[in-house]
Each structure stands twice: as C-alpha cells, then as structure tokens.
C-alpha cells in the first residue's frame, strides 16, 4: 500500500472541526425549536461559528498539500 502520511494528518485534523460543527448546529436547531422567531438572528450566529470551526479543518487541508511534497 502506497500513499502519503500527510493525508492521514488531514483526516485527524478534520475530527475536531467535525465535532465542533456538529455541536454548533445542534445548538442552532435546539434554539430554533424553542424559539422559532429568533431564527434569522441565530442563523447568522450559527454560520459564523460554523465558518470559524471549519477554518481549522481547512488549515489541515492546506498543510496536507504543504507537507506532502
């Protein structure tokens, strides 16, 4: 089996953001279910948090390409 260990590193780096994004949207769904009229406000907050958590996974993706060579 051939491959690059950097890709494994990317897989590991995606675990944290995956859990984080799951928690963010769980909280968002909870919030909307409890208070549907707050949806638009919560949506902005949820997507901001989602974007911030996702940044970590993207760093993993980029560093994978950096360290691959």
């Amino acid at each position, binding site marked *: 089996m051939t491959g690059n260990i950097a890709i494994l590193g990317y897989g590991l780096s995606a675990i944290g953001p995956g859990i984080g994004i799951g928690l963010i949207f769980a909280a968002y769904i909870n919030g909307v279910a409890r208070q549907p009229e707050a949806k638009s406000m919560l949506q902005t907050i949820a997507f901001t948090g*989602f974007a911030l958590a996702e940044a970590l996974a993207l760093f993993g993706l*980029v560093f994978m390409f950096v360290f691959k060579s």
Partner: protein
Amino acid sequence: MSVLLAARADSFEAPGVHDFWQPLIGDGAYALTRPSVVMAISVVLIIAFLTVLARRLTVVPGKAQFLAESAYGLVRNSVARDIIGSKEFLKFVPFLFTLFTVLLVNNLFGVIPFIQFPTTSRIAFPIALTILVYIVYQTVSFRRKGVVGYMKSLVPPGLPGWILPLMWPLEFITYFITRPVTLALRLFGNMFAGHLLLLVFTLGGEYLLLHSTTPNKAAGALSFLFTIVMSFFEVLVEFLQAYIFTLLAALYLAGAVSDEH
C-alpha cells in the same frame, strides 16, 4: 482529451491538483486559463442579467426578477442590515451584493454542464476577492478610528492591565493575518475539495465501468450514482460558501464601523 483517456486506460491515475491547471492559450505565469475565461463569462452574464432586469422592473415580479430580488433581499436584509446595523449598512450593500453574486455564479459554474469549473477552486481568485475585502475593512477601520484608536479597539475595554501584552498581539494577528487567510482558504478549500470529490467519483466510475472486470462494473455504476448525489450536495455547499463569504465580509465591516470592540 483522447490522449488523456488513453493514458488513463491502462492504470487508474487518481485525480489531483494537476487536473485544475487548464491553460487554454500559452503556458506558465501568463497563460490564459480556463477559470479566467469562466470568470470573464460570469461577470458578463451577471452584468447583462442585472442591467436588462433593472431596465424593466415590474410591480408584480416575474421569475427572473423574483430571483434577483431574493438574492438582493438576502444580502441587503439578512446579511448587511442584521450584521452591520440599520444605521450605516446601505453604503456597503453594493459591495456585498457584488461579492455575493460573483461568488454565487462562479461557484455554481462547478456543476453547470459544459462549464463545470468552479473558478474559486483556483486559489488566485479567492485571494483576489479577499484582498478586496481586506482593503475595504482595513480602510474603513483606519478612517473611522484613526491608527491609535484602531489599535486600542483591538482589545475589549476593561481588561486588567497585565493581560494586555498577551491579548493584544493575538488580536492583532487575528485582525491582520488570520482573518484574510482563513477567508480565502475557506472558499478555496471548499470549492477545491468539493470539485475534487466529484472528479474522484466520475473518473473512478469511468475506470471501473470501462476498464475493469465484470463484478467491478457494478461498483462503477454505484460510483456514477454517487456523483449525482454529490452534485446536489455540491450545489448546497457552493451556495453556502458564497453566503458565508459575504457574511464574514459583512461581519468584518461591522467590526470596522462599530465604536466599541
């Protein structure tokens, strides 16, 4: 293309970064590439669509007008007004709307037949757009608060003095380095990874279906089925990334125009 197919025939070659480098005329740093042509097409399309539409606005919107109005409404109301605040959001709406439409059309080009290349999967395009956002929000910050005021506003007021040497450099790095880098990388990473995923399923399916033994052909068919499913997922991601890019640009602008941290 036939050379490519022939080369792929004897052994499966996984798609990679090289598949995104598609020069049409010339080669090297000054080549006219496929994404730049797609970008030019998208700009012409957006300008033509919106100007023709704006010329004949009707009270009862037609399909096209409804589409444009809902995109504009999304940017104006749920992005600009809700984040920047109702006092000064209006002057940033044209900028944000331009960003949103350009990104949306360019991202959606990733799944539109015959074009099928999300421009933003080449890192130069996200970087160029991010530089635009960066210049705008830094200029607004400096003009609103002045150099000293801006540097002071990086940390929230009322912090104990001993924590400032720790906090301030971190916030400085966030405002001046992390924000633009993540803004560009998020868009690039999502578009690149998404398109690569489609490539893997399509090329893998093609290889399994045409160049392998019979039992593997079923897996090839499954792979093609998955391409269709993932294409729908890609449409969602492409829209979401255009939205998030605009949202974050608005968020940074909101930080620039607000008085406190």
